[in-house]
């Protein structure tokens, strides 16, 4: 099932970088407060647990990718579920990617208008972001991935610098008491870790067929996700250690508050705007991949000639949707806390399992026939 719509090819290294960017994605903005709300000072345990729980999910996707190495998610759906059911599910997935992207755009816009550029209208930020997003999508998958490759060292550098500069502010007492309320809150927090950094990686299933498979691709796939998880662990850990569980759960953007705490020799301070660059980068790539997944998905579902022509309407759609997706920030956070994880799980865990079952059933049927 050679795909005619996408001719680009990605190397394993580029895939790994993409995974790290997407894992960090918007989680670096929203995850600490969600997990701290659920598990208080044990939120870091949630990250470990969530990461562990994510591995089987990644394995399921890997299995699908192995059985259908050259088909992206939509193609797999269509081939396994037939024309009408497959088409419906394909459309459903595309819409899912669309809404994730809309949420991401809104999150970034909210962040900037609340914290940094308070007088800039939200829609202007969205417009600028959409513009560069469209620019990237028009260039294609390979340039986007190469851009990620180019920015990655700087991204890591800035993260490391942030972490290093925060070490004077660590207060281990913030982590106590340990498991005072049992494992249940930790499980609660791990739900968010499972979905926001990891389950939302399902969009990568649209990109996996275009990776040049080498011997180490499989290993790097898991390693990259683990590395991204490690970054999240450090972020959540430092949030707790520096700010404390109460502030982490009540701050709108704890990582931004973290950046504010950097103070080296009374000279290197108030650098949070620079640190905001990190969020922009990681969110950008996650949004780009989801947008790409949506466009490619639409093109595949309706068997169109190409996806680039849909970029224009897509931008208009997102401009509108990023605005109306939620009337205010509180509602959005509430949804993220109580409802969205289950939608993510449906799409990342439940449906792929069904697909795998369909695949196995199909195999059995042919085996029986033979």
């Amino acid at each position: 099932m050679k795909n005619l719509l996408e001719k680009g090819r990605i190397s394993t290294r580029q895939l790994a970088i993409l995974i790290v960017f997407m894992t960090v994605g918007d989680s670096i903005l929203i995850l600490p407060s969600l997990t701290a709300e659920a598990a208080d000072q044990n939120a870091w345990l949630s990250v470990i647990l969530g990461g562990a729980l994510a591995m089987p999910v990644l394995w399921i996707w890997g299995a699908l990718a192995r059985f259908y190495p050259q088909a992206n998610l939509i193609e797999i759906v269509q081939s396994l579920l037939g024309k009408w059911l497959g088409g419906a599910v394909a459309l459903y997935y595309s819409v899912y990617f669309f809404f994730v992207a809309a949420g991401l755009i809104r999150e970034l816009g909210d962040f900037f208008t609340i914290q940094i550029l308070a007088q800039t209208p939200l829609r202007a930020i969205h417009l600028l972001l959409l513009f560069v997003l469209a620019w990237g999508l028009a260039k294609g998958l390979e340039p986007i991935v190469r851009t990620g490759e180019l920015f990655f060292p700087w991204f890591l550098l800035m993260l490391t610098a942030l972490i290093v500069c925060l070490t004077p502010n660590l207060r281990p007492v913030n982590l106590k008491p340990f498991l005072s309320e049992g494992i249940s809150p930790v499980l609660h927090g791990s739900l968010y870790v499972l979905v926001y950094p990891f389950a939302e990686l399902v969009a990568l299933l649209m990109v996996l067929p275009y990776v040049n498979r080498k011997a180490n691709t499989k290993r790097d796939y898991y390693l990259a996700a683990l590395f991204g998880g490690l970054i999240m662990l450090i972020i959540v850990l430092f949030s707790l250690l520096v700010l404390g569980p109460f502030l982490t759960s009540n701050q709108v953007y704890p990582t931004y508050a973290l950046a504010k705490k950097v103070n080296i020799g009374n000279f290197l301070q108030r650098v949070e705007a620079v640190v905001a660059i990190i969020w922009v980068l990681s969110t950008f790539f996650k949004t780009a991949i989801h947008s790409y997944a949506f466009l490619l998905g639409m093109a595949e579902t309706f068997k169109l000639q190409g996806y680039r022509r849909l970029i224009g309407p897509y931008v208009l759609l997102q401009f509108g949707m990023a605005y109306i997706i939620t009337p205010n920030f509180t509602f959005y956070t509430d949804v993220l806390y109580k409802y969205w994880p289950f939608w993510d799980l449906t799409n990342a865990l439940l449906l792929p399992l069904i697909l795998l079952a369909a695949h196995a059933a199909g195999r059995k049927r042919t085996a029986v026939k033979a």
Partner: protein
Amino acid sequence: MSASSGASSSFDDSLLEGRMKQNLAYIGDSLGHSQDLVARELTLPFDIRCALVYIDGITDPQLLHHAVIDSLLGLGGSEDAVQLSRLDKSERLRYLSDRVLAAGDIHPLKDWNSLFQDLLSGDAILFADECGGALRIGVGGLEERAVGEPVSQSVTRGPMEAFNESLRTNTALLRRKIKDTRLRMDSLRIGRVTKTNVTVTYLQGIAKEEIVAEVHRRLGKIDIDGVLEGGYIEEFIQDQTLTPFPTVYNSERPDTIAAGLLEGKIAILVDGTPFVLLVPALFVEFFQASEDYAQRFDISTLIRIIRYISFFITTLAPALYVAITTFHQEMLPTNLLINLAAQREGVPFPAVIEAILMEVTYEILREAGIRMPRTVGQAVSIVGTLVIGQAAVQAGIVSAAMVIIVSITAIASYVIPSGSMSMSARMLRFLFMVLAASFGLFGVIIGLIGLVLHLSSLRSFGVPYMAPMSPIIMSDIKDSLFRFPWTMMKKRPWSTASPNNRRREN
């Protein structure tokens, strides 16, 4: 046979018949009896009549007189003359070229097109009465500029010679650097009216076959009246014209071009200009200079890093200034902030207008400096920098900090070895300033993402522009950001060299 006129002159390709007088008349008509056209009729012993046609000024008079006229007139009653008279008339020219003429480069001609091409390129044409065809004798020799120092790319250590306008001198300079049999020189003529000589040079077996073929293909497709500079060709052969970044490298230094050839690149030499094109060109190559290899590797690595930093400074410094002073004042240390605020107290403009004003002023000064007659040049630089800058600050039009930023930006732009790349930086600077003014650092980072996206999608003759940084090719990184010692650079660049890519053994 009628003389035709028009944008592209064409002649009937008839064989030149042995009617000398008619041929001479035809040539005279076609060239409009131009004053520099010389037709010298000679009578050889035994009443053999010939005529020598050439264009004065583009031929070398010494060569013409000694090699051609002397040898012809010196026949006297010698053996050769006797032989000549006994030969069949149609064999005469061949005999002359084989035995009599003392010139080095002689070809027989059979059609008018090549005759005119050669005549107008500085060769002499010899006719013999009642003998078909003609001889083309290479005696071209125009006054040319001596091999001098490079004007635009100077180094602190390394050869100081540069190409000049003569194609032959330039190919000779390259031959001097590369004495290998595999050095190929394919020549073409481009330009319907100018018929400029263009030579495509590469090392056979080291340059990628596909790229060589592609270069030929693209050059062949050029359809233009005249090619006066390499830049004309550059626009036609580059992958994408809608980009501020150069995808074709140019240089007037033979050592740079030779180094490129050794890596598998293809050089395009154009007659009439000392700037030679080199393809394919990648982003990192515009930050390399030939002296990086002449000096030790640790120095070269550091200096390369400085070049990259300078590129960022020259592109982003004004934008960052605008962004920080407009949106993110909290980022500055308090003392600095107070100072800046005090400076900007009296300034009527917002930071971005200030920045744009100063940058545009600087660009104007710079352009003026290029066109200025030498005698006045000094005055302008003093006027420009000290007086305008200082006076503007004192008049309260701009703040002192802005002048500093603009100066650093300007100086940083000269650090980049390649002029084309610093041009790109100049253009991008303004875009970033606008973004910074509207969206602060967010605008800058979005602009950077957009810029990198654009760079990542560029290709130069099929090779990704940002290689070896992305896609990462570990073996090539040693020569891009850094300059590792020769012992560690064992392979030729992946992007250009064909499979035989070990530098050190064959």
